[in-house]
């Protein structure tokens, strides 16, 4: 049952990701992107990381792609506009190159022993993927700094910087 679920989610993910980059109309690709996020959160659930699955849907799909949608609607591209984005000979070369490279890489990685024959441990301590585990690692327990609280703080500074940069870029008149 579980393997079926994995294959369903996996193939779903790959196809939706594929369509996301192939479709001409950016609106369509955004939507197929959102569908692929659902598949990803499914995979997270499979990997017993419920908090992440929720974050994926809420933050990633909900916030970031919605932002994309706003931007696209802002441009209201005409059909003729994005039809011009045709395939060229050069793309075929890059597809072949990436395809060949990826296959070789996958073949190598799959067989390397830090990856092969690891089966899922049955019993998982209850708070593996849970919010509690996250809280401990981010904010640390009673007086001890969390494992990742420093990086967490840095990301907050990063977000601030990102906001300022976005404002600077988007300002009408400097």
């Amino acid at each position, binding site marked *: 049952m579980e393997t079926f679920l994995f294959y369903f989610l996996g193939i779903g993910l790959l196809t939706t990701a594929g369509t996301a980059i192939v479709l001409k109309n950016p609106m369509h*690709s*955004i939507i197929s992107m959102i569908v692929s996020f659902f598949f*990803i959160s499914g995979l997270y659930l499979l990997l017993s990381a419920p908090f992440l699955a929720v974050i994926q849907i809420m*933050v*990633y799909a909900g916030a970031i792609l919605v932002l994309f949608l706003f931007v696209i609607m802002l441009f209201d591209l005409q059909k003729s506009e*994005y039809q011009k984005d045709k395939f060229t000979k050069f793309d075929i070369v890059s597809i072949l190159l990436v395809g060949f490279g990826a296959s070789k890489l996958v073949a190598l990685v799959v067989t390397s022993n830090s990856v092969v024959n690891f089966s899922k441990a049955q019993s998982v301590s209850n708070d*593996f993927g849970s919010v509690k585990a996250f809280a401990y690692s981010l904010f640390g327990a009673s007086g001890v700094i969390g494992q990742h609280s420093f990086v967490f703080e840095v990301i907050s500074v*990063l977000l601030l910087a*990102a906001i300022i940069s976005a404002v600077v*870029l988007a300002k009408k008149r400097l």
Partner: protein
Amino acid sequence: MVSLNLFIALGIVLFFIGLLGVLIRRNIIIIMISIEIMLNAINIMLVAFNRYKFIENNDGLTYSFFIIAVAAAEASVGLAILIAVYRKRKTVFVNKLNTMSN
């Protein structure tokens, strides 16, 4: 039972699909989306490794969480640039933007 290397293979393929997206499409929006795909692929592999190999702590999970946050920041700046470009050049196609060359 689904073993680790399946997840890793899936992650790598997804990563290269994203990379391919960047190389092929002219539309900047699509390029940004393919970058997001690449980041998601990385998240999947992170979670997979953490779940299968290093079950005792959840570093992988927190990393992927951070990556989502960073991706958000990146996307915001990227879109800001995109708006600025669109407002000035009225196009979102990258092959138009090659005024500078030797």
